């Protein structure tokens, strides 16, 4: 059953792909470490350029996956050194990471973060290797009705888990799905929401969408910090750069537990690195914080969320590769990238395109080792990236965004559309929306409608088919439970509980 992995290593170990895994890890770490650029922005900015290289699908995916895992790692630098989390997933890293840096242990903190990331990711990649083919075998039995129910479940789980405001998360997802309906309807050839613009016949281009939504809105958002002198922009001295074996062993329990936890959370659709980091940190604090050192620079408090973050990053490949349902915003971007190559991830990919599925998984193993090898000795170099001023960064992002979109069709309309989407993304972010649901909705929207219509074609319009099978009924019930429980539980508890915890609700 591991044929795909053997074939995958054959693909991933070719000199070109090995080089790409290395390049991806390097670029990803650099972009992830840039102030204000999280993993998702890093991929959004670099992805169009990856296309210009004219790579075959599996090579492009290896490059992008390298960028993804690299960026997840690079994003931790500003958390530890500057107390500024690069993205939501890195918030927990700041809690003990930055105090460590203040104690003069910035170097060991970075080293420990690299080692925990490595171990956490390795646990998850092994989990991915074991479970993805199994899940794919189950998923082969999924018909359109089951896939539709699965997507509803994914959106429900995302609304509850992602972001602060479930209503806004849901609205974001609906807006994303709506954007996906733009263009020629594949079933009937009817134009929907194109307003007579030929550029919209094929729908809103994926690259235009992600660059606008992430890169352009980021430029606008950065303006708010342009002239603010943050007190913490001084990078603390790194001290010794290597973490000692003793320190790593001290954290081994935290790393192992959080790696497993992160993997499981990553597999759940819609729950990404931020949930994994938070859950693992609180779990570890409850389990091992006997002296109350968590929050004051406890190594275990840094190791736990780091292992969990990276484990969830790898874990979110499980639903993406086997079901075609991304587990996080970033994997949604990767999924969209695959679709550009006319590959729709799903259960058939392991049998029909084993070189893509296996090559990707194999390259995750390789990329992970490359990352460790890169980050331990070069931590100091990457840390310097943090000091790049915004007045260099912003124009560079602007150039990359413009060229990335322009090279698609040598067409200015796409650039104007990108700017419009950028303003839209900026407004959403200012209004407290998270962009991940929007991109997830956009990527999944087309598939969702296709599956719905296919299912109803099979049943000749009878809606009952959507919950006829046990699998789909279970998914509907799970989705309903997810949506109702967070609303119901506090009410049930409030009935018995004393009044004190009502006030912060």
């Amino acid at each position, binding site marked *: 059953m591991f044929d795909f992995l053997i074939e995958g290593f054959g693909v991933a170990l070719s000199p070109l792909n090995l080089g790409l895994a290395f390049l991806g890890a390097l670029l990803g770490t650099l972009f992830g470490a840039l102030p204000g650029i999280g993993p998702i922005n890093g991929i959004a900015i670099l992805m169009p*350029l990856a296309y*210009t*290289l*004219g790579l075959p699908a599996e090579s492009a995916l290896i490059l992008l996956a390298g960028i993804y895992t690299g960026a997840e790692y690079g994003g931790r630098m500003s958390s530890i050194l500057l107390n500024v989390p690069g993205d939501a997933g890195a918030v927990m890293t700041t809690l003990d990471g930055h105090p460590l840096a203040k104690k003069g242990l910035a170097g060991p903190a970075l080293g420990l973060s690299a080692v925990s990331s490595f171990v956490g990711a390795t646990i998850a990649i092994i989990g991915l290797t074991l479970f993805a083919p199994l899940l794919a075998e189950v998923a082969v039995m999924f018909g359109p009705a089951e896939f539709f129910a699965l997507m509803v479940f994914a959106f429900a789980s995302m609304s509850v888990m992602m972001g*602060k*405001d479930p*209503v*806004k998360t*849901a*609205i974001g997802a*609906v*807006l994303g*799905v*709506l954007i996906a*309906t733009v263009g020629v*309807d594949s*079933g*009937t*050839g*009817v134009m*929907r*929401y194109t307003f007579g613009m030929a550029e919209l016949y094929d729908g809103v281009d994926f690259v235009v969408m992600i660059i606008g939504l992430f890169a*352009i809105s980021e*430029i*606008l958002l*950065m*303006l*708010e910090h*342009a*002239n603010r002198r943050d007190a913490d922009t001084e990078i603390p001295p790194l001290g010794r750069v290597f973490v000692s074996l003793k320190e790593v062993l001290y954290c081994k329990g935290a790393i192992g537990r959080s790696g497993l936890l992160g993997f499981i959370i990553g597999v759940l659709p819609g729950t990404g690195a931020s949930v994994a980091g938070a859950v693992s940190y609180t779990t570890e604090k409850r389990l091992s914080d006997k002296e109350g050192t968590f929050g004051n620079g406890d190594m275990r408090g840094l190791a736990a969320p780091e292992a969990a973050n990276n484990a969830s990053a790898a874990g979110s490949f499980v639903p993406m590769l086997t079901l075609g349902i991304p587990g996080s915003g970033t994997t949604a971007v990767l999924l969209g990238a695959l679709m550009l190559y006319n590959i729709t991830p799903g259960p058939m990919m392991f049998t029909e395109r084993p070189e893509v599925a296996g090559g990707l998984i194999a390259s995750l193993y390789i990329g992970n080792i490359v990352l460790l090898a890169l980050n331990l000795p070069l931590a100091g170099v990457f840390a310097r990236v943090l000091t790049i*001023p*915004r*007045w*260099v960064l*912003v*124009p*560079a992002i*602007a*150039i990359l965004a*413009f*060229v990335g979109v*322009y*090279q698609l069709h*040598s067409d*200015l309309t796409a*650039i*104007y559309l990108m*700017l419009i989407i*950028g*303003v839209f993304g900026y407004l959403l972010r*200012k*209004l*407290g929306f998270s962009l991940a649901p929007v991109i997830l909705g956009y990527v999944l929207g087309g598939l969702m*409608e296709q599956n*719905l*219509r296919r299912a*109803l*074609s099979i049943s*000749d*319009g009878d809606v009952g088919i959507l919950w006829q099978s046990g699998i789909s009924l279970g998914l509907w019930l799970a989705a309903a439970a997810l949506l109702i429980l967070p609303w119901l539980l506090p009410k049930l508890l409030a009935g018995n509980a004393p009044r004190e915890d009502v006030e912060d609700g």
Partner: protein
Amino acid sequence: MSTSTKPVADRLLGICLIGLAAFVAVQAINLEVPFSYEPVGPKAFPLGLSVLLAGLSLTLVFKPGTDGHWPHRALALKLLLVLGLLLVYAMLFTRLGFMPTSLLVVAALARLFGAAWSKALITGALMAVGSYFLFTAGLGIVLPTGYWLDAII
């Protein structure tokens, strides 16, 4: 950044989104669909979405969140300036060519983001020339040289 305006932003958003939902629904209903054997057709999905969006937006109107830090006037002006610059970049991209436009826009952007004029100009020149060769020679992307240059050559 007055705090009293916070719920207003969400309420306004909710109302706008209800308008959007109505627009989406009307457009969907007015689609002219040729006969097809498929029972659902292209209307139902957007219609369902618009109902969902309207419902969610109503929740937002009646239970607005607490988010929102709106830029004060000076920042809003700068925001418009940056947007304007990006628009100028788009408009001159093919007319003036990649290199001159990038030089201008990069320098102006750098200046807006707090660089001194001299540094901004140097950044503009370096980035415009450097990225041009990186993209064209390195990645094989064809970038516009500008109509004026074509005219001279």
